[in-house]
């Protein structure tokens, strides 16, 4: 059974007399219990697609079934079955943590008794115990984010949509949040559909990645496969000796895709597998009597994957930084009123 199934979703916005197609035909399938990462440069149609899937925006054309309910004809039923956590959350700084959660539960028609128990359980589950009576504004970034997620989980949805769940969090909080997201799937079988800018996040969390660009899905695979196909590890070597001789030596190694001398006399080696390759490089150079002064291994970043896939970086934004408001994609923000 497919839990999210979208066929030919499109969305156009009117900008004055012009029509801008933000999403040009998205087909996607997600299986129950999957953690899927949805990636794309700014303006690629990522947020628009997410907002369509979560009933916030009506598709111009196309169909979708979310958790068995039709997006167009039964949006209210879809809302009952999904949880959505927006990029910048959705809490009032002066509201109290448990009040926000309790209200959210009541809006899903959970009775007052069960709602109270559900709030207590969620506070414990997301390490927010003891913070119930605090104003939201007094929480740390990580706590606030966990509250946002708790709000999306109040009604135990079958699917939860997370928009940039760890953007702006410190490394410790990010790891902690990943743990919670994993547990959500492992313990409750919740399907997770998330957008992210970070490859390490997609790597750590996602079973599968969907890449969107210019309003269409352009790649769809496991993170490992995507990286293998679309980007490689790059090793920069500072050789104590003739870099050109070193280059000739290394170019013949089986794991080396490419070796080049940079303008500053360093050596740049592109490797299929950085961890294995780094050992081969050192031993080969040592065997030839060439010393190594310094080594630096650069893992492929999502930017690299994107550069290969879309010809632009993931965070390329010709219009400058986007403003911190719920609809961040330039086109939508201006025209989707």
């Amino acid at each position, binding site marked *: 059974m497919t839990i999210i199934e979208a066929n030919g979703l499109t969305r156009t916005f009117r900008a004055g007399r012009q029509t801008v197609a933000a999403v040009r035909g998205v087909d996607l399938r997600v299986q129950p219990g999957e953690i899927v990462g949805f990636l794309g440069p700014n303006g690629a149609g990522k947020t628009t697609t997410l907002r369509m899937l*979560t*009933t*916030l*925006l*009506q598709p111009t054309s196309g169909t979708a079934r979310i958790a068995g309910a039709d997006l167009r004809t039964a949006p*209210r039923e879809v*809302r*009952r079955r*999904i*949880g*959505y956590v*927006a990029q*910048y*959350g*959705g*809490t*009032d*700084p*002066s*509201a*109290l943590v448990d*009040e926000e959660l309790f*209200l*959210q539960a*009541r*809006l*899903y*028609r959970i009775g007052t008794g069960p709602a109270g128990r559900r709030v207590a359980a969620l506070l414990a589950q997301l390490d927010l115990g003891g913070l119930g009576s605090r104003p939201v504004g007094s929480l740390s970034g990580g706590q606030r984010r966990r509250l946002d997620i708790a*709000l999306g989980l109040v009604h135990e949805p079958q699917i939860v949509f997370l928009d940039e769940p760890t953007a702006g969090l410190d490394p410790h909080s990010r790891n902690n949040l990943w743990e919670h997201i994993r547990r959500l799937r492992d313990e409750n079988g919740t399907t997770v559909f998330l957008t992210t800018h970070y490859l390490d996040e997609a790597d750590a969390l996602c079973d599968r990645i969907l890449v969107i660009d210019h309003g269409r899905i352009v790649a769809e695979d496991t993170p490992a496969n995507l990286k293998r196909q679309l980007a490689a590890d790059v090793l920069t070597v500072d050789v104590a000796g003739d870099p050109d001789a070193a280059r000739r030596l290394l170019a013949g190694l089986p794991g080396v895709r490419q070796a080049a001398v940079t303008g500053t006399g360093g050596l740049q080696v592109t490797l299929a597998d950085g961890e294995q390759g780094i050992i081969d490089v050192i031993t080969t150079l040592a065997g030839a009597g060439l010393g190594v002064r310094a080594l630096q291994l650069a893992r492929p970043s999502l930017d690299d994957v994107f550069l290969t896939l879309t010809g632009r970086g993931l965070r390329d934004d010709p219009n400058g930084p986007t403003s911190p*408001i*719920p*609809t961040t994609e330039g086109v*939508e923000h201006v025209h*989707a*009123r």
Partner: protein
Amino acid sequence: MSMLVDILLVFQRHARISLRSPIWIIIGISQPVAFLVLYGPLMTSTLSITGVPAERAWQTYVPGVLVQLSLFGSAFVGFGVIAEWRSGVIERLRVTPVSRVALLLGRVLRDVVLLLVQAVLLIAVAIPLGLRASVPGVLAALGVVMLLSLGLACLSCALALTVKSEDTLGPTLNTGLMPLLLLSGVMLPMSFAPRWLDLVSRLTPFRYIVDGMRSAFQGDVLSTTMLSTALIALGIAVLSVLLGVRTYLRQSA
């Protein structure tokens, strides 16, 4: 039924947040008192120069302040709506099965209740200062001013979600409300106005609201003036609620 529960839930949320803000409560209480104490004596003595007895002066002034409170209290609800839209609260609520209409009505209900509390306070403070008024008349006037608040708050919410910018909302409200307020005769009764100004004022809705409420305070509850006032207030409320609902139902609002 389900919608009523939703309205109540949304109302409770806003009421709780407001009640926890001391500044909000202080402003809410001090506003009506300031109007009475700082401007009331000036107004009544000005009226007494023209031969209006003190009792009649208070019956003229207090309904005017009620309308003014309603106008400024509810018209600026939109600022809160923009803040909520920006913080993502509105979007978060829109992804729940809550009725969109309840999101609007629950929101503005808080302001209608606030106005009622302010109005009762205003009248209570005005009595020792010299206000004497017909009880049914005061009740009828309260009903009218609550309808007015409901309507204006809905309009403000609709406008806020359309412009989505405080910088646009503020000047728009001021530009729209200031002439309406001046022409309504809130400051001084329009009977003092030159004929042309009086005529212009008769083209604006608040003029009738203020006139009707004044005559109600004087005891003419079942007069035609009061009836047309009630109908105008009802019309404003119905149209504004419909407009607000339309805005809230729109997909990306």
